[in-house]
């Protein structure tokens, strides 16, 4: 099977995600865009798995989903913590750790 189109979709989604991470300032949207990037990788993995006809890529995709779930967990936790301390919900404003 030809994986070209899958990969094109995957890279488009990845690029959209990356652009979102770079341009948006709301942490919630950044988290969403991160999910896009991870899922772009998933698309590519599953496409390759289909191409070779074995399950390893599928397993990788599942693991990536687990990682994504964890990451969202922590990310949303941070967002809630920021909200609770009444800090601005804006990643550019939260830069106390600068050198």
């Amino acid at each position, binding site marked *: 099977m030809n994986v070209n189109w899958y990969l094109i979709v995957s890279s488009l989604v990845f690029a959209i995600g990356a652009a979102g991470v*770079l341009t948006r300032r709301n942490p919630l949207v950044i988290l969403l865009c991160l999910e896009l990037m991870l899922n772009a990788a998933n698309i590519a993995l599953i496409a390759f798995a289909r191409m070779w006809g074995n399950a390893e890529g599928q397993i990788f995709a599942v693991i990536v989903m687990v990682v994504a779930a964890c990451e969202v967990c922590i990310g949303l936790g941070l967002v809630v913590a920021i909200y609770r301390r009444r800090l601005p919900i804006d990643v550019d404003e939260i830069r*106390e750790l*600068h*050198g």
Partner: protein
Amino acid sequence: MQTSAWLILIFPLAGTLINAFGWRVLPGKACGWIGTAAIGAAFIAAVATFIALQDRAEDQKQVVFVAWDYANTVGVDGKISILIDPLSIFMALVVTGVSTLIHLYAVAYLWKDRGYARFFAYLNYFVFSMLLLVLAANFLLLIIGWAFVGAASYLLISFWYRRTTATTAGIKAFVINVVGDVGLVIGTFFIFRHSHTLDFLGTFDSASRDFAGHQGALTAGLIFLLVGAFAKSAQVPLHTWLPDAMEGPTPVSALIHAATMVTAGVYLIARMHPLFELSPAAETVGAVIGCVTLLIAGTIALAVTDLKRVIAYSTMSQIGYMVMGVSAGAYVAGLFHLMTHAFFKALLFMAAGSVISAMGGEQSMDRMSGFRRAMPFTFVAFIVGGLALAAVPPFSGFFSKDEILTDIGARGGLWWILVVGGYIGAILTAIYTWRMIFRTFWGDPCPEARDLEEGHLYHPEAPFNPSNGEIEDNDVGFPGPEHMIAERSGEMKIAMSVLAVLAIIGGLLQIPFVTDALGHFLDPTFADSNLDLSPSDGLVVVGLILGAGLSLLGIWIAYVVWVKRPGTSTAVRERLHPLYKLFVNKWYFDELINAIVVRPFAWAGRFGQQTFERVVVNGVFVGGTTGIVKAGSAAARALQNGFLRAYAALLVLGLVGVALYFLLQSS
């Protein structure tokens, strides 16, 4: 004998430690008595060793005791060993004997000083170092003792450590002594290189073989040893520390700067005599420098007015005689003079200390006069010391000084020039000694003397530094509140009486044609000497008559100038103004050393500090390194700007970079 020999060293060390660590609990004068007892015990041990040594056969009188091997590797045989022979035991007896009396004197003299225990700890440490120096059986211990003695001298000169003049003098003495130490060490290297042993007796035994083809190395080594001896014995041009060392307490001047430490150079030359006899050049250098020193110091002593400094210059001059004597081969005569000089010079210093106390610390002779009736005991002691120093028969100095000069005369030839110098020095000695006595004790009593005649000891309203007039207090680091004079304290009287008796009868050991006790005793040490200096009978008689005549002439001149016609000295000073300037400025040696050594070094130091360190070290090395680190960290810090999206952008850029790299690689 082995036990008693080691005990000579152990007692003073024990005294040092007890006084150094026990001063908090020791009451009253206990520190002083412990110090005195320690040295007294060392004297008894020295006597016991002396007796044991006398029981031995004539050729068995050089014994080495080894405690342990200190370093025995690669051809170096460093041992902790002491050499007991007539010379070392003679030195040990003189050192411990005179030191005991001086300790006794100091028990009273420094009684009111706040640093009493510290003083005795230092003094005992000094005696220990000196004994280590004279008993050492190898170059290693000799160097250690030599350096210890210099350190002890520094500690004692700067004893009143809040006095700027005293600390400066201490530093000066220490630095010049270290120059001597370096000379000694380098000289030892020169000798060790060919002898391959540090042991004295081993070196001497094979000296004529070892140095057969290495005359130059031997002479160079001996000249370096002489540098050490000159620095320690205050010979020209390394003498400038000794007059300044008079800043220390008077017992220190008596002990270190008259009786013992400054004779270390004489001892060194006498100990090294088998080597010196192999190198006539080194012998000549020593003898000539000794002669030059005795003349220069004698002339300066005519002009200075500080009572203790006059005696200090006289010490330099007398040590000039000894150095001249032992360098020229008159070993017994030189050591004989060392002994008698220790007696009468310690006595003179003690008497001078008493006078200075009566003056409330003032040392200038310009302010003293007429102490004759006020201080009869001190006066008599001063007279005895003065007669012995001026070499009037039958006082001890007469026989010893004369023996040096006649022995050198027996060598004949150009050595006669030194003998003539010695006789000129003898008349100078008599003049400056009696100038000192006439100015201090004759004439109308000064206010302080009158006070004393009425029964109370003069004390200045505020204690002051006699060198620069600065006002001081009586706390630790300065002299104590009360001054002690011999008339009022038993310890000082006893010490001075014993020394006075010794100064009178000390000459009996060596009377020409009558006794030769010292020469006979020292014979085993000097048995290997190839020089046979036995002046003819006629020479001895002429020498005795000439010596006595010159002494009396000198005293008469002093009497005429300072007592009979009081204006004469001023008239002479006016007439010979340039000469007077030369003498009173000490032949400009301080200025010379300043110009040749001190100023170039100070300039180099300033260059190093202000130019080299500031520009090269601080600017280039330190500044360069910190500059690089600072710039680098500033760049790294700029990256950590805290913008989350900037980090993400960098990450993406990095990813793109890696991806592009691989893509380009694979195509």
